[in-house]
């Protein structure tokens, strides 16, 4: 089965946030960690689908997350301000829901990529770049 496993994706998103400095008991740590996590993830995807392809996936994820968190529209980049700075700023302005929004954005991006290239290939690609975050199942590890 090559289905997207939402639980698996959520766990990976939590690991990625933690790796980038998120401390879930301290909401103030989330905006910067989320911005760094998204930047790392987009850079990782760009290795395989190109910068334009990775940006398109990110922007689509923001659009999907906006259905619940409309203020996240600010996360889209402008000429003056890089998208990661805007993302961090918008999360800082909504710290009460920052954890929920951060997880929604990251899982949305990972789900989208997995849906388009299949879970198996998505995990392989992400594992190759961020092995501590994207873990392979025992059956997926080469002998």
């Amino acid at each position, binding site marked *: 089965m090559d289905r997207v496993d939402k639980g698996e994706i959520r766990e990976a998103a939590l690991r990625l946030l933690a790796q980038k400095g998120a401390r879930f008991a301290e909401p103030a740590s989330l905006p910067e960690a989320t911005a760094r996590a998204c930047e790392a993830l987009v850079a990782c995807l760009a290795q*395989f689908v190109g910068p334009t*392809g990775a940006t398109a996936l990110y922007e689509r994820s923001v659009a999907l997350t906006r259905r619940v968190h409309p203020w996240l529209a600010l996360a889209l980049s402008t000429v003056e301000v890089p998208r990661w700075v805007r993302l961090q700023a918008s999360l800082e302005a909504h710290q009460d829901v920052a954890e929920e929004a951060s997880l929604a954005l990251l899982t949305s991006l990972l789900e989208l990529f997995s849906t388009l290239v*299949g879970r198996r*290939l998505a995990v*392989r690609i992400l594992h190759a770049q961020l092995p501590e975050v994207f873990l392979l199942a025992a059956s997926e590890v080469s002998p």
Partner: protein
Amino acid sequence: MNERVDIKRLASGVPGLDEVLGGGIPEFSFNLLAGGPGSGKTTLAHQIMFANATPDSPALYVSILGEPPLKMLRYQQQFGFFDHEKVGTCVWFLHLGEDVLRGGYETVLARILQEVQTRAPRTVFVDSFREITRRPRGPAEMGANDLVQRLALFLGSWEATSFLIGDFVDHEGENASLLTVADGIVWMRQTVDRNSVVRRMQVLKMRGQEQSPGLHTFRLSSDGVHVYPRMRNPALLGAETMPVRRRRLTTGVAGLDEMMGGGIPEGYAMMVVGPSGSGKSLLSTQFILEGIRQNEPGVIAVFEKRPEEYLQTLPAGGELAALIKAGSVRMMYLRPLDLSVEEAMEELRRLILEIGAKRVVIDSLSGFEVALAPAYREDFRESLYRMVGALTGLGATVVVTCELIESYIELRLTPAGVAFLADGIVLQRYVEAHGALGRAMAVVKLRGCAHSKDLRAYDIDDAGIHMGEMLGHYGQVLTGVPLLDPGRDALRLTPAPDATGKSVGRTRKR
């Protein structure tokens, strides 16, 4: 220091392609995979890449203005050759769409060089190269020819075997410089003829080795590209290696073997011609069944009916089905209407080698011709000539059935003009006698061998074909209406009725 450099060849991983290329892809060569949209270039490139990529020999796939990489990953993984484990470990992708739009050829070249220096790939693919060269450029900018020259030099120096993939529809004019620089050029074509799609490729050049000339059919399936190399002239393949005095293969029809001087000479292609219902398939399957008795496995290629239907129509269908199940007989049935002769030949060759077949039946030639894509029917005679030569070159004795148009005054075969292919011809005819249709058989030709010139009656029953007596008392048998010589006893040319009124039995004197 006069030793020649040993050019190693990479196995392409594409069935049939290495044979067409002349032994594989020369290491460190700079190649062009060209063709129109949808011709299979990207799939061919991925297949070669995944076949050759290992941790010690990584591969780099550079996409420029062609198919977006996200879609490429999505679609290419549908093919059987796509190995998920290699992506991100020994298969790397680089997308330069933005670079070519913003920075031109210099940026593209710099990014490729940078990536090659970082990853040290042994195979590099640049897709779609054609799109780069179409891009408008400024007067001071590097030109497409410079880019090609530098890329070829650089990739060769880095010991990379490289492939440029491009949507080219012809190999003239503006593409000439690229074609000159390339060490190897594979041109892929897709044409639609009536309702069939025909894919063919041509190796225009392959420096340092002798590629197989002409157009080669290929098929694109879930396994990827499969090339069916054009069969060469049988004489070039050494097909005529049989001893002068050949062993005879009995047909399982006693009287017929006598007429041929003991059976069909080994390695001969024998054509059984006759009108519909005359027993051509029956004679062919008796030949296969007799082979099993002689410990000579056989292959039957059927085209007009599905195997189950074919077996149901034969008196010995049950016995044949059991032999097929046991593995001593193989039956080939290929998807009709878009077949190529080469594809049929490859499958036949595979089955022959699989069981060590000594006997092969093709039933029928007219069905085979109809099963071919229209584009291949034009070359049917030539392809068939090569195919029969290749089959007999494998040591098989071949029986081919062929429909006869009953004009009674001439020997007209369908397909037309194929009689020259056969070393021998057995003719079956209907004759009218006593208010019913009887059957007569003759050996018309048996190259280099003495054979009976008799016309003999024959019957068919549940046990198969039974040869009757020579029709020596009759004249004008081939007109279909034999005349009994005055003063001679008539032979019964049609089956005699049994007690229930059913027609059974052998040819006999009235």
